[in-house]
């Protein structure tokens, strides 16, 4: 009996330990509670104060000693004696602060989230695999490893990350690993490749070829040309070099676009929202108070925690560079050195096409190409799913690229097979661009660096201490025939394939324009005399005009003036549309909430400040208006594109009787006027509903309800943000997207002065005061003045801690 009791007690104890040592899912996921709550090793060990310990670590394979000083906002200042150690140290220190994020983002890139969170992520993972993210990353790693400099960059970065991973015990793991019950695996060069492709996907997937194909079939060419013009004819192009494109362009025989006959009834992939964009500009010394050029950059991305950016200062013989890096990739992406500064915005250009494939039979072993059956290549993707069996997905590759849709994935039948042609599948060596840019000393160096850059296409702004400013829209662009790339292409004829690429020296670029500044905000890139056909799903219509207006007016410019421009909340869209909208309302007949809304809108100064009520009413109105206008484009079965807001407003002014303004669901015939009146009523109702639900005063920031979400959408690690601006405004902060990095660099001959901030913090640990300290500054519109000294000795006294890396003795 006693033995039985003992056995039972022992069994309970061991079962209890087993249960509490593992994660479970009973409807909602449960962390390994015993392990997680243990104050000796669990989450408590992730709780930190602002004090940071100095450390000395040995790293195998390091050539020499590296010293890293943390400054007061935890920016690491790395001083190495050679480039290899510099990249190893960057890998080490980035991993020390951002390891979980680095691995999670590369898991996301490669379609491996299911193994961390379970079945809910399976469709996401399959999408990544079927778009060929792994294929793209492998191709790019092959080209990186073929170049000795690029190879040294990624090899040493990987070495540094792995040195950190190997030093970790359970109690030092980032909290997310403890919460989800898994552990980091070794870093590889492929992961750096995946991360860069993840950026490329974010910036290239606004395309809507499938939707446009349906729209063309439904509405005809005339309507498509009216609603989706190649350019909306608004504002200045990024580069106006009229009459000076002095080269002989590559030309191609025109091919009539061959659009499939039936509607494409597939569920389109999730798109990058149009609020992904960016601003950058550089003003010449002739317009600044100091006489030195000033360069600014703010890329607009989804605002997540840990932030997409990590600020680093990297110093070694021949290089002294600082700025924003992407955790997971070596070098600095947007930054400055002793001589130059550069920054990036997305070039928008269409670099994704879909080719309709005809397979010989169900086996999909062969496909038709120029009258012949060509063999396909099949890749079996193995997706591990937490708490479920392994999922195998077969992806068929053609010479165009992977076939994304079939009956098992987003397609309703086996008729629609589309291969995905994407520039990011091509060999590329972007890291080399950044290695060279980080070391460039003048315009020639900047141009040389960009010659290695393929994708995702970016508007690279440049300024130099010697006074030069420049803009170059760099990427690898297929030479397009008119309308090519807007719709699905016939994949059975190679004449429809991308035939040639625009040579690098024929890309859109210029230097030192007479207006005294260069700028880009995702608008149309070139003047009408540029000889190549250019096409994109979305050109920005408002931010670019506001920026150029302000820059034209300003003289004796100071860095503060340009910070104010980055934070500018002027709503150009509202200023161009609201007076007309209001003129259609009969104010004498309004009462109650409608009258209050009318008065608030009438008094509004068009600035989307935190406190503004008018901004909230306007936004609610616009949100009600566009679905009413484009009700013809709401089809539950057939995916269709939506015309831009700029074009909607333009048509309301110029063609108020257009058929599209008639709401199909109502018997009477509406024009722009009735749409405006109806949407006003709906907008006011939406605001009243919001007031009732939220029980607080209406302000723009409260109505916007912006958040910086933790990458796991874990509310406890996320923050609400009270900030002005909106998409289409220079301060492009919408509910979830916005300026992910604000940088201002004054390139004075006596030394660089630079400021920057991003909505997050240098530490990825939610238990660190450095997790959200920069978010608080960012929200208030403040900047950090960067410490940027070229000699390690001069950092002494400015540091809060020192990390010393030594070569490990053999």
């Amino acid at each position, binding site marked *: 009996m*006693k*033995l039985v*009791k*003992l056995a039972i*007690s*022992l069994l*309970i*104890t061991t079962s*209890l*330990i087993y249960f*509490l*040592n593992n994660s479970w899912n009973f409807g909602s996921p449960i962390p390994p*509670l*015993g*392990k997680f*709550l*243990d*104050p*000796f*090793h*669990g*989450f*408590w*060990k*992730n*709780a*930190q*104060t602002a004090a940071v310990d100095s450390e000395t670590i040995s790293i195998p394979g390091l050539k020499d000693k590296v010293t890293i000083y943390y400054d007061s906002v935890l920016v690491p200042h790395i001083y190495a004696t050679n480039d290899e150690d510099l990249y190893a140290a960057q890998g080490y220190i980035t991993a020390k602060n951002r390891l979980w994020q680095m691995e999670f983002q590369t898991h996301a890139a490669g379609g491996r989230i299911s193994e961390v969170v379970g079945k809910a992520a399976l469709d996401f993972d399959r999408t990544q695999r079927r778009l060929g993210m792994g294929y793209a990353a492998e191709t790019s790693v092959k080209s990186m490893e073929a170049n000795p400099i690029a190879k040294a960059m990624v090899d040493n970065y990987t070495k540094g990350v792995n040195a950190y991973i190997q030093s970790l015990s*359970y109690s030092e793991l980032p*909290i997310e690993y403890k*919460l989800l019950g898994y552990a980091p695996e070794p870093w590889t060069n492929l992961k750096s490749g995946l991360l860069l492709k993840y950026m490329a996907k974010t910036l290239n997937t606004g395309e809507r070829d499938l939707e446009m194909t349906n729209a063309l079939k439904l509405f005809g060419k005339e309507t498509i040309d009216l609603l989706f013009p190649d350019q909306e004819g608004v504002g200045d192009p990024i580069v106006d070099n009229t009459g000076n494109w002095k080269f002989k362009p590559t030309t191609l025989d025109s091919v009539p676009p061959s659009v499939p006959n039936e509607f494409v009834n597939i569920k389109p992939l999730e798109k990058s929202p149009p609020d992904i964009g960016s601003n950058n500009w550089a003003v010449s010394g002739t317009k600044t108070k100091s006489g030195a050029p000033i360069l600014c950059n703010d890329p607009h991305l989804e605002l997540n925690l840990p932030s997409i950016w990590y600020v680093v200062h990297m110093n070694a013989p021949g290089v002294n560079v600082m700025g924003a890096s992407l955790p997971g990739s070596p070098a600095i992406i947007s930054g400055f050195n002793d001589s130059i500064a550069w920054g990036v915005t997305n070039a928008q250009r269409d670099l994704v096409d879909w080719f309709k494939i005809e397979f010989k039979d169900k086996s999909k072993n062969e496909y038709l190409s120029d009258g012949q059956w060509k063999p396909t290549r099949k890749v079996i993707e193995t997706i591990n799913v937490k708490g479920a069996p392994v999922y195998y997905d077969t992806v068929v590759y053609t010479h165009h690229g992977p076939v994304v849709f079939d009956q098992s994935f987003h397609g309703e039948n086996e008729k629609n097979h589309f291969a995905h042609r994407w520039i990011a599948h091509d060999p590329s060596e972007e890291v080399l661009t950044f290695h060279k840019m980080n070391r460039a000393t003048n315009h020639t160096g900047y141009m040389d660096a960009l010659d290695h850059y393929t994708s995702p296409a970016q508007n690279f702004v440049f300024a130099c201490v010697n006074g030069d400013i420049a803009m170059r829209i760099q990427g690898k662009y297929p030479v397009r025939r008119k309308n090519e790339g807007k719709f699905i292409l016939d994949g059975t004829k190679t004449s429809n394939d991308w035939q040639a690429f625009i040579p690098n020296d024929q890309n859109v670029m210029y230097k030192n324009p007479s207006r005294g500044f260069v700028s880009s905000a995702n608008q149309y890139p070139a003047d009408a005399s540029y000889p190549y056909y250019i096409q994109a799903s979305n050109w920005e219509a408002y931010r670019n005009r506001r920026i150029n207006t302000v820059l034209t007016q300003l003289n004796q410019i100071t860095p503060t003036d340009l910070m104010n421009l980055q934070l500018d909340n002027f709503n150009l869209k509202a200023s161009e549309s609201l007076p007309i909208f209001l003129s259609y309302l009969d104010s004498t007949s309004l009462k109650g909430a409608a009258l209050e809304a009318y008065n608030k809108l009438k008094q509004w100064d068009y600035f989307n400040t935190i406190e503004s009520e008018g901004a909230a009413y306007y936004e609610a109105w616009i949100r009600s208006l566009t679905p009413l206008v484009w009700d013809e484009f709401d089809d539950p079965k057939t995916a269709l594109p939506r015309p831009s807001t700029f074009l909607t407003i333009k048509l309301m002014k110029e063609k108020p009787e257009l058929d599209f303004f008639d709401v199909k669901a109502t018997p009477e015939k509406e024009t722009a006027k009735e749409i405006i009146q109806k949407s006003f009523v709906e907008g006011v109702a939406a605001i009243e509903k919001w007031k009732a639900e939220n029980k607080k005063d209406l302000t723009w920031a409260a109505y916007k309800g912006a958040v910086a979400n933790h990458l796991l959408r*874990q*509310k*406890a*690690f996320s923050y609400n943000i009270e900030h002005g601006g909106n998409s289409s405004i220079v301060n492009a902060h919408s509910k979830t997207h916005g300026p992910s990095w604000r940088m201002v660099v004054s390139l004075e001959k006596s030394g660089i002065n630079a400021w920057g901030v991003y909505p997050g913090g240098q530490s990825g640990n*939610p*238990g*660190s*005061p450095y997790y959200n300290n920069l978010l608080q500054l960012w929200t208030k519109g403040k900047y950090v003045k960067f410490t940027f000294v070229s000699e390690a000795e001069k950092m002494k006294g400015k540091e809060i801690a020192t990390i010393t890396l030594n070569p490990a003795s053999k």
Partner: protein
Amino acid sequence: MKLAYQFMATIVVCFLLELFLPWWSLAIGACAVAYFIGNKGFVSFLVGFIAVAVLWVGMALYIDQSTHSILTEKVNRLLPLNSFLLMGLIGGLVGGFGALTGALAKAK
């Protein structure tokens, strides 16, 4: 008196074990103490439960104080129960059953 001995010894032994071993070493500590200086079955369970709960919650309170509750509030939003309560319960159960096993092994 034996109660106090077992209580103190469990805290000290579990503390030392946790410096080198994972969290489940609590059970080993509580079991060993109960085996050598423990009380009878149910009393040992209670003493083991309370000792480990006190050790865990005490350590956590110390960390919470010295880090200005920076993570405690966030984790409390994640868990169905307050983290101190939950860890007292979990640590306590493991310590209690460990001690019970030790006491039963001795009585065998």
